[in-house]
């Protein structure tokens, strides 16, 4: 007879002294871990609930401007520095860590229309209603010195926007036409126009740095190549586009913030159909900015809210609003991808977390592991109705909520009418037009 009994030495399973950690032997055999899926589901449900509990995105409000904030700019070399231009011509430089204004310049008479920093972070440019382009040093003036711009260019027309090249000493302004300037000269290197309307914004492509995009009030988006004298192509939409923003990771993708409450993500190689139509806002979208990862962007709207959209989704994942925030004019996503800044009509700049329930500060490794695990679980069970409902639930101000309902009814009525038209006309004579193609009027090359 050969016999072996299971006989464990307790010393191998309990800690020796009270100072030790408890011993936890593991066995991953599935029969010892029954109900794996239901338990994970419950964990995911709890994690989703906790996420909503801890969703406190608002961090700080930077006040000090005496008029509405019209434009924002990030400093490419310093995460803590932010520049803002107001409607009374004042430019302020903020320190985000201290949440204080560190410098104030009376830059223009009338609006500051545009502001941008040089790629090296040593100086910045502003354009204003007084038909000037000014270059300023990032550091303040020394003791006894006057606050004066480095250079001032007097133009013939009002400039409405400015953007700096990402690598070279070249910047572009827009107004009646798109001008490309060398920093050393007082005249533009070249001016490009297509049509006769005022252009509201111009943006350099961060990857293919010779490319520019602009949007004008005659409802079109025009793309330029700096090396050519003429524009590349343009797409005409139903309504005016306010701004565009290039994807910092995919050179050929850009997103346009439109007056018709939607945002359109275009592939610049095929402008006739947008890659995605992002709809959730209930009023004109005024500004858009990509996260540095290129996976998400934030949009500011006239409906007093900002929304975060994933690039490949048509609905927003997040909406931020406060009682006091008025029409949001400008929005920026910080370079560390963690925060969002919004400048609004009622003279404040607000700082938000990009991920509403994220814990700020240094995490211990166990905290990190737990959040990662919960994140994965939420991802795994995101389509379950109960979890989906909780994670999608947002409290909205009454005005936005009722507008959403109203617009839903309107949309439904339009769709019904279209269906009826198809039904009662000769088969094939009226076609169903997809949402993506509906808003594109023409593409011109």
């Amino acid at each position, binding site marked *: *007879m*050969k*016999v*072996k*009994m*299971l*006989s*464990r030495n*307790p010393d*191998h*399973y*309990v800690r020796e002294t009270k100072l030790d950690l*408890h*011993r*936890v*032997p*593991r*066995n*991953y*055999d*599935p*029969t*010892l*871990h*029954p*109900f*794996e*899926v*239901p*338990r*994970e*589901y*419950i*964990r995911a449900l*709890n994690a989703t609930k906790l996420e909503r509990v801890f969703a406190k995105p608002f961090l700080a409000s930077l006040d000090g401007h005496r008029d509405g904030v019209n434009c924002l700019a990030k400093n490419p070399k310093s995460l803590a520095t932010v520049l803002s231009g107001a409607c009374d011509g004042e430019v302020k430089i903020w320190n985000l860590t201290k949440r204080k204004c560190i410098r104030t310049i009376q830059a223009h008479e009338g609006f500051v229309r545009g502001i941008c920093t040089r790629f090296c972070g040593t100086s910045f440019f502003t354009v204003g209603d007084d038909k000037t382009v000014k270059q300023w040093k990032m550091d303040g003036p020394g003791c006894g010195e006057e606050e004066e711009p480095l250079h001032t260019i007097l133009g013939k027309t009002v400039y409405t926007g400015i953007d700096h090249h990402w690598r070279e000493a070249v910047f572009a302004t827009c107004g009646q036409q798109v001008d490309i300037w060398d920093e050393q000269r007082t005249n533009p290197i070249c001016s490009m126009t297509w049509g006769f309307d005022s252009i509201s914004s111009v943006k350099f492509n961060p990857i293919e740095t010779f490319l520019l995009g602009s949007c004008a009030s005659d409802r079109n988006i025009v793309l330029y190549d700096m090396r050519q004298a003429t524009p590349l192509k343009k797409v005409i939409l139903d309504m005016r586009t306010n701004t565009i923003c290039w994807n910092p990771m995919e050179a050929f993708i850009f997103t346009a913030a439109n007056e018709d409450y939607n945002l359109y993500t275009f592939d610049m190689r095929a402008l006739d159909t947008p890659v995605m139509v992002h709809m959730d806002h209930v009023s004109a979208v005024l500004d858009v900015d990509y996260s540095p990862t290129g996976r998400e962007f934030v949009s500011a709207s006239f409906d007093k809210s900002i929304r975060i959209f994933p690039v490949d989704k048509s609905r927003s994942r997040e909406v931020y609003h406060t009682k006091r925030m008025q029409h949001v004019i400008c929005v920026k996503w910080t370079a560390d991808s963690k925060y969002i800044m919004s400048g609004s009509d009622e003279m404040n700049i607000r700082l938000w977390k990009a991920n509403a329930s994220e814990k700020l500060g240094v995490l211990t490794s166990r905290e990190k592991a737990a959040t990662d695990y919960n994140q994965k679980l939420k991802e*795994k069970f995101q389509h*379950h109705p109960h979890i989906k409902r909780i994670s999608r639930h947002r409290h909205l101000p009454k005005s936005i909520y009722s507008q959403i309902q109203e617009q839903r009814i309107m949309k439904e009525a339009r769709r019904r009418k279209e*269906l009826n038209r*198809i*039904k009662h006309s000769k088969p094939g004579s009226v076609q*169903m037009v997809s949402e993506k193609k509906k808003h594109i009027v023409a593409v011109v090359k």
Partner: protein
Amino acid sequence: METVPKPGSNVPPKKDRLQAKKKKPRRYWEQETTGTAAGASPGPPHKRKRSRELRPQKPKRNDTSKKFRISKKPRELKSPGPQRTFSGAQDPFAGPAPVNVEVVRKYCRIDKSKELPHAKTKTRSRLAVAEAQEEETSVRAARSELLLAEEPGFLEGEDGEDTAKIRQADIVEAVDIASAAKHFDLNLRQFGPYRLNYSRTGRHLAFGGRRGHVAALDWVTKKLMCEINVMEAVRDIRFLHSEALLAVAQNRWLHIYDNQGIELHCVRRCDRVTRLEFLPFHFLLATASETGFLTYLDVSVGKIVAALNARAGRLSVMTQNPYNAVIHLGHSNGTVSLWSPAMKEPLVKILCHRGGVRAVAVDSTGMHMATSGLDHQLKLFDLRGTFQPLSTRTLPQGAGHLAFSQRGLLAAGMGDVVNIWAGQRKASPPSLEQPYLTHRLSGHVHGLQFCPYEDVLGVGHSGGITSMLVPGAAEPNFDGLESNPYRSRKQRQEWEVKALLEKVPAELICLDPRALAEVDVISLEQAKKERAERLGYDPDARAPFQPKPKQKGRSSTASLVKRKRKVMDQEHRDKVRQSLEQQPQKQEAKPTGARPSALDRFVR
């Protein structure tokens, strides 16, 4: 292993110089290996050895990395590798540790045979990624089995010897003192036949006698926690989620005691309870009563979740399926019905025996169910969908009590005898031919349970309690986060909080516990259909083929039509082929039995 050829040997001078060059950056450890290796065997000259070593290594590495992606990492972790190769010594265990495919399959969770209908390319690629990750994790989990500390027990007879003939006394004599102490008898003739229950960690034992004797003890150290007499008949006894709470089914009502023997609750809504089962992950106490009701009591909030009328008279046979928390009830008409609190009707009804069912047991994998009936038969059923008997055996007396161990041993109590059957391997069902062990007790068996994580079978009988040694019954390696027999009070408290946080709701109990992670194809199709109806067209439908205009002259209208027609014809042909493939099955089903007659052609 390096041996430097002496300058005098007949090697071409060029090579000699090369070797002299190589010899320069020698380190002490290389010299050491030279000494020992050369001493062991004066091998072939240096250069040949090198080439032989290096060549087979390369394809090997490619091979392993292709098979298991993660194999790269442990390789990279072995940093002293390159130094050793300088010395010429070879890693005897190159590459990642080998993994048994069978073991990997045990950890595999995705069923690749199921295909999703009309999955989009994006979804399909995402699924492919998930599958690859799944494979990786299962390989890792399988590899981690190397770290398991304990080996399962066993009992083998010498050639020809029948293990069933081996008596408990022999086993006790043969094993070590600690194990021998696990065999004991409690002589409690006074308070009649006993029911018993081990706690989930296997550390504590509670028993209750028919005449009201209730006791709980730490049976390993033999420390008594409490001993009371409830002055009422005790039908069944059960630990709740931890050893601190005890549920006792008494003559009238269900009572809950703590480990000091203090009565905490008297649940009057559960009356005349005959059997108790506790579902640890749902915190549900299932009670079967004389009145024919199956009642689920949520012990975390104290609410009755469901009270189901089984409509089959007195319920006295109940067990739980530990795999999916479905309750199995045995009835006097020979059926076994499977219940979940979410349904008013039984999920399944299986006709198992002629005459009443006496006992039911389900193994820990949820694959097999053993039943015994008044017809003296012991049957083993397959629970994976078919519910068919796998094997049957007629016992002279018929088994009154059945229990499965963690490793799949089946114990049956017949009168005052306990028989235990074992399978060939761990996952296989017990073969009912030869018993593995038998034991005769001093009284009639009234309760049976294998102790979790110990090779012990607890038997409650009319003469008291007997703790039998059954080598190879229990899972040798416990998981410390799930149920730890050696846990401290603090650990238990922490575990309790975590377990309560992830309490599974009672509605999720169903036959397949993994159903929650699978795609609900039926409602998906339904939603698609509704969407198409609402929109007035199917947005996922394939657009009709539109030929692309070709270059220069080849794009005439005729050729366009021709191309279009070609594609249409191909599609039509595919459709016809599919319908043809389906037809013969129907035809085969029709003619059965009689010879074909000439008049068959007129049959419609």
